């Protein structure tokens, strides 16, 4: 038997399983028992917020583990010049330099500390302001993630979580053993004499289809027994799956806190911008995610007395409009409402934004945003304006993982 399909628990077999009885049991499971969580942790793939063309102005704590790219294709009604950034973890740079597979689990876990530091580089959108034109700047950034309660290392130090994982393992192991013994003893007892040894009988099954063929020959009363044992097996595996989903979702909702530094360097006499930022996020429940940014911006001008200093606070609530099965690496359709307050030159400016993130395919999303707030130009900050933007985000770690899975 070569390369069977995907088993009920989602494990891809690249060689013979050698477990026809278990494979047969798995074939009896319904799709509802198949889902488990996979790589669902939210990661920022959109440009960091200091890039003026970014479709988001609230930064998330974690970027892609491997490499993420964000292209802001067109600010609606604004400049037609594109902008974008690439974010990479120190880990991805290390594995690239050492020619190691960054998704190999042993390497991935051995260097988890390297995934707490992320580096960003890119080009910002040129300012469309008539009064205060700015040349297109280069964006540099670094992010440190000192609190990451969603990492596997943190989970291993959580006795309650470890106990719950063990309980799930106990249920699926016990359910499988019980169903397998009930089935094979029934089938063996119905064999005509002379019967082979039990080992020869067990090894006479090459595939799940062989098991099904023997089950098909059972008398109706015996078939009823098989149906009952399958119902019990399906029920227990399904319940264990649900518990596992809840546990993984709970763990993936825990706090992450990051410190961020971003700068935009521009040519000539244009201002250079610097930003220090605290980012905290966690999930409120399985669908609602909360993010807070608190930051200080400094704009360094070559003109005497023209430097500006700005305090900034931003909040975002992100809601998953759709549910994506645990195995899918695709993002859900998301709606986000965010607000930003800026304290600049002794007065407050406010912006609010509604954003819709449409998943195109695995690791590829199309964010649309519609905002309302004070205009950024110095002479028109009292005015408020409506703007729209859309972009394209790529999460290369998910794309690579999807390609590897498809092979």
């Amino acid at each position, binding site marked *: 038997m070569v390369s069977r399909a995907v088993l009920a628990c989602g494990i891809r077999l690249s060689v013979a399983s050698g477990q026809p009885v278990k494979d047969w049991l798995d074939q009896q499971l319904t799709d509802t028992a198949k889902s488990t969580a996979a790589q669902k942790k939210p990661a920022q793939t959109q440009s960091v917020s200091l890039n003026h063309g970014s479709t988001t102005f609230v930064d998330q704590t974690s970027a892609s583990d491997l490499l993420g790219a964000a292209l802001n294709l067109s600010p609606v009604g604004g400049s037609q010049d594109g902008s974008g950034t690439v974010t990479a973890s120190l880990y991805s740079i290390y594995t690239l330099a050492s020619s190691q597979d960054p998704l190999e689990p042993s390497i991935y876990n051995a260097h988890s500390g390297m995934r707490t530091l992320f580096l960003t580089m890119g080009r910002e959108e040129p300012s469309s302001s008539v009064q205060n034109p700015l040349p297109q700047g280069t964006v540099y950034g670094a992010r440190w993630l000192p609190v990451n309660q969603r990492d*596997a290392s943190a989970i291993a130090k959580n006795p309650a979580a470890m106990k719950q994982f063990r309980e799930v393992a106990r249920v699926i192991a016990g359910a499988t053993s019980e169903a397998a013994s009930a089935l*094979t003893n029934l089938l063996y007892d119905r064999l005509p004499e002379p019967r082979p*040894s039990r080992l020869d009988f067990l090894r006479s099954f090459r595939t799940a289809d062989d098991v099904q063929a023997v089950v098909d020959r059972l008398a109706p009363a015996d078939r009823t027994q098989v149906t009952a044992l399958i119902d019990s097996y399906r029920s227990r595996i399904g319940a264990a799956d649900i518990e596992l989903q809840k546990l993984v979702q709970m763990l993936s909702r825990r706090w992450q806190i990051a410190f961020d530094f971003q700068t935009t360097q521009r040519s000539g006499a244009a201002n250079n911008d610097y930003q220090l930022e605290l980012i905290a996020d966690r999930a409120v429940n399985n669908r609602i995610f909360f993010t807070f940014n608190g930051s200080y911006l400094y704009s360094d001008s070559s003109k005497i007395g023209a430097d500006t200093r700005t305090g900034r606070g931003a909040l975002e609530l992100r809601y998953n409009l759709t549910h994506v099965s645990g195995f899918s690496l695709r993002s859900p359709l998301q709606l986000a409402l965010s607000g930003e307050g800026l304290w600049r030159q002794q007065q407050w400016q406010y912006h609010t934004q509604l954003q819709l993130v449409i998943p195109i395919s695995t690791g590829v999303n199309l964010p649309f945003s519609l905002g309302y707030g004070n205009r950024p130009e110095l002479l028109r900050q009292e005015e408020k304006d409506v703007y729209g933007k859309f972009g394209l985000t790529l999460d290369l770690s998910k794309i690579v993982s999807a390609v590897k899975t498809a092979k």
Partner: protein
Amino acid sequence: MAKRTGTNKGSSALHGSKREYLRYVLSPKGSAANFSQDDDKNITVVADNDFPQGDHCVWRLQSAPDQAGTRLTAADDAGNSISGYDRVVKQIFIPSYSVGLVFGAAVGYDLNVDYCSATGEVIENITNVKYTDGAAGEHAVELIQLDLEDA
């Protein structure tokens, strides 16, 4: 999605009269293992908390003769009893032992099971499987069913 490679024959002989045993070696990849081995009566043989320091979790499913059939116990690699598992099974019954693997703090597992004589000689390799790239929330099971009847 976790990838499984290798083979599991899924069944083995085990003769209590000869005190044969199955030797399990489970090596988690990642921070820690999340696993449990349970029989067809839903009784746990061993679990990850029996191996607190384990880069490699090694145990035996030890057989011994008994008036009512075959006694099956859990032992460490030196043959000392661990976990308190103790069960007597009639030889006309096919018992099942499954190792449930959960990808929580681990992202991969290597599982090797050898059918061994009382002196430790490997009679047959039953299981040699490797799981890689496991994502949080996935799970897998490796099943071995036993023929306990003495020839």
